[in-house]
């Protein structure tokens, strides 16, 4: 049972998703702590797959652990580290454990991580991996060999409407939808005009594709400069950085920026919810959710 799918397909409710922190230590206790913090606010949370090209506890293992603790996972599978056999094995493993939400991503390059000497795989790309998930949903592996019982995946993906070629991002999202994606989380971005154009374009063609833009909670201007300088695909206009940097209270200015972004995104066509990245700033997360009209445990 995917509560995420039920809410998106059978209701008009707004869905909130988040990123599960990577697990490098603290064992199951740490998993539980993260679940306790996130479960009150989010319907489903991403179990990442070697995010930013750093090795961590695996996508499948974290998704299972989250599920055991009562938090619905969106299990990511990234094409960078796994060939098509391994991608399908992750899917079959998710199916075995009753994990229904999966998100297929092309993934950052190995050079983004702390082991840049690694061999990059990319045997599949994001749209192909989505199509493979659709093939498994129909009861076979890519080869045609049977998989029984067939999975009932709710297939998600990711797109970056803020990176060039901007006009083409709409077509690429539609291609992912044709391959089987029903929900699309967006990369963090600071160009509202690009977001507006993307949402309008997607919603005009496939109103049923749920768009989930991202909002990141930060405490100062420093992470904005960092993202602009160091993260390929993210550009932060100088005036946005200045607005926070030149404020007497940077934390407050950064919060107001995030709140504005969230409210703007929710007003756009096709947008069914938000994806929140919070770098574990508990108090700001709760403040943002309450300012957006949420109360804890609305999904339970």
């Amino acid at each position, binding site marked *: 049972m995917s509560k995420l799918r039920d809410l998106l397909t059978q209701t008009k409710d707004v869905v909130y998703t988040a990123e599960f922190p990577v697990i490098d230590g603290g064992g199951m206790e740490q998993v539980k702590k993260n679940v306790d913090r996130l479960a009150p606010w989010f319907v489903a949370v991403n179990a990442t797959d070697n995010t930013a090209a750093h090795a961590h506890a695996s996508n499948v293992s974290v998704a299972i652990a989250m599920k055991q603790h009562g938090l619905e996972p969106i299990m990511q599978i990234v094409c*960078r580290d796994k060939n098509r056999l391994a991608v399908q094995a992750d899917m079959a493993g998710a199916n075995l454990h009753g994990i229904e939400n999966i998100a297929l991503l*092309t993934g*950052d*390059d190995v050079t983004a991580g702390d082991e840049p000497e690694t061999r990059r795989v990319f045997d599949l790309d994001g749209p192909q991996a989505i*199509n493979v998930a659709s*093939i498994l949903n129909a009861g076979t592996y890519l080869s045609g060999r049977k998989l029984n019982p067939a999975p009932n995946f709710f297939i998600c993906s990711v797109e970056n409407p803020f*990176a060039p070629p901007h006009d083409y991002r709409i077509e690429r999202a539609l291609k992912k939808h044709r391959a089987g994606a029903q929900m699309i989380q967006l990369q963090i971005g600071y160009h509202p005009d690009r977001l507006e154009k993307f949402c309008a374009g997607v919603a005009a063609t496939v109103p049923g594709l749920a768009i989930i833009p991202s909002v990141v909670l930060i405490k100062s201007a420093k992470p904005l400069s960092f993202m602009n300088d160091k993260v390929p*695909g993210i550009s932060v206009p100088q005036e946005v950085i200045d607005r926070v940097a030149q404020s007497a209270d940077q934390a407050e200015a950064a919060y107001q920026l995030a709140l504005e972004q969230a409210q703007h995104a929710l007003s756009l066509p096709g947008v069914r919810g938000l994806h929140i990245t919070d770098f574990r700033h508990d108090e700001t997360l709760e403040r943002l959710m309450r300012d957006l009209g949420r109360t804890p445990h609305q999904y339970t």
Partner: protein
Amino acid sequence: MPKLLNLLLAVEHGMKKPVWDCTMCGQCVLHSTGMTCPMTCPKTLRNGPCGGVREDGHCEVKPEMRCVWVKAYDRKVSLPLPTVWKEHYNDLRPPVDMQLKGTSSWVNLITKRDQQTPAGWAKRKEQSGSH
């Protein structure tokens, strides 16, 4: 016949290597990607750009290189390519068949070997209509 195949392979490689830095994937899609080879993308992405394209349109992995898909999109829009080629731009291209590496895509085009996909892929394509 093998001699002819070898000749075709040599001619194809001789033409495509200098112009497109061809790696002889054996399943050429140049016509549908604005005459830009997706195999020169460091991630060898055949279905469009990743999310890491820089603000100046350059590659996440090789900042000195323009993104292959930014180039492909510009060319698709601006080059006077046949309409039927442009129509294939948004096709969902199947995963690369590694068995064709080093073979002639011209021969594979004629024999339709380059259109063979795994059974599961072919069945989904049939059921969901043209990608």
